[in-house]
């Protein structure tokens, strides 16, 4: 029996690393966001920080991380 059509057509990629590298930043529990150690600004305001660029970011887990 061949693979199911969905499996056959599935996009395959190496298992992504589970945790992003956040060197140079820290998470502020009180503020509820990540801050750059360099300039004390939220990392989301940092042009060099890799922010969510597409609706799926870099991992295809479904939009509410259903597949996590």
């Amino acid at each position, binding site marked *: 029996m061949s693979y199911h059509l969905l499996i056959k057509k599935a996009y395959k990629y190496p298992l*992504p690393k589970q945790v992003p590298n956040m060197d140079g930043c820290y998470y502020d529990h009180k503020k509820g966001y990540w801050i750059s150690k360099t300039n004390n600004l939220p990392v989301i305001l940092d042009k060099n920080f890799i922010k969510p660029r597409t*609706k799926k970011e870099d991992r295809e887990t479904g939009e509410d991380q259903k597949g996590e």
Partner: protein
Amino acid sequence: MNDVEHLIVSNSFDFTSDYICYELQRRGQKYLRINRDRFSDYCIFIDLCKGIMNICIGNNEYQVKESFLKSIYFRAPVFLRDSYNHSLSLAEQLYRSQWSSFIRNLIYFEDILWMNNPVSTYKAENKILQLKYASQIGFEIPQTFITNEAKIPIKAESNYIVKSLDTALFRKDETELFVFSNIVKGSEIRESNLMEAPIILQEYIYPKIDLRVTVIGEKVHAVKIVKNNEGIEGDWRKHKDDVQFIPYDLPKTIINRSIELVKKFNLSFGAIDLVYCKGNYYFIEINPTGEWAWLVENANQRIDIDIVDMLTRGV
């Protein structure tokens, strides 16, 4: 003790929630973000007689009570599928199953603005029902079949869209597999193995332009997704590094239908995928937990501002 007006339920690596917290902080709001991956760092105590939830994080104490709470921004999976998983330790299985239940139980807080209530999200995640409601509201929908039967009356020479009924993410050894929407010839479908699981089979609408419509209450943002200013064949996510997101003016009727669909599912937020083809707007799907931060970055659509406006207004 800090009283909480806005509770954000998230994950510490969910940068989309950073946008919301930053804006709440900028407005001087009383909010708390709790992260599902950090529950071991929190001390949580719920007194049901008093109807209060105390959360201690380090030296900071927070109190959540229904009379003061205005909104919950829920950025967590409604379906968590792998807590019973042989690769997880017992402690991990316990953590996942019980904390998942804990955050679902936050629906205890009823008279507040939810974005979105997980009960509503659970219902809205069902694609067959989405298509039914969208059609009832007046959207065009592609001709759609759901089947595990390959020998169906489709044209061998025509192209069809084949996709999964639910998010299909699999793992095999060191490889992950994700099922996008695929263009498949009728002849190939008819010769395929479908028996093990149903698929969604849809009419292939082409040429088309993909549209992403983000609805926050009565606010609507739309972008068209193009490559070199042309529509993309098949699933645009396969080309995500090469596409442009361009703000798009929807006709008033489509704006109204989008708002109505979100309301029909009792949601306050919804991310709707449409396609435009030859003067018609076809509904593809709605995602009640859809991502949006990429649109702030790429299309300057300040969805973060609209979300915080709604959270701070409450019900």
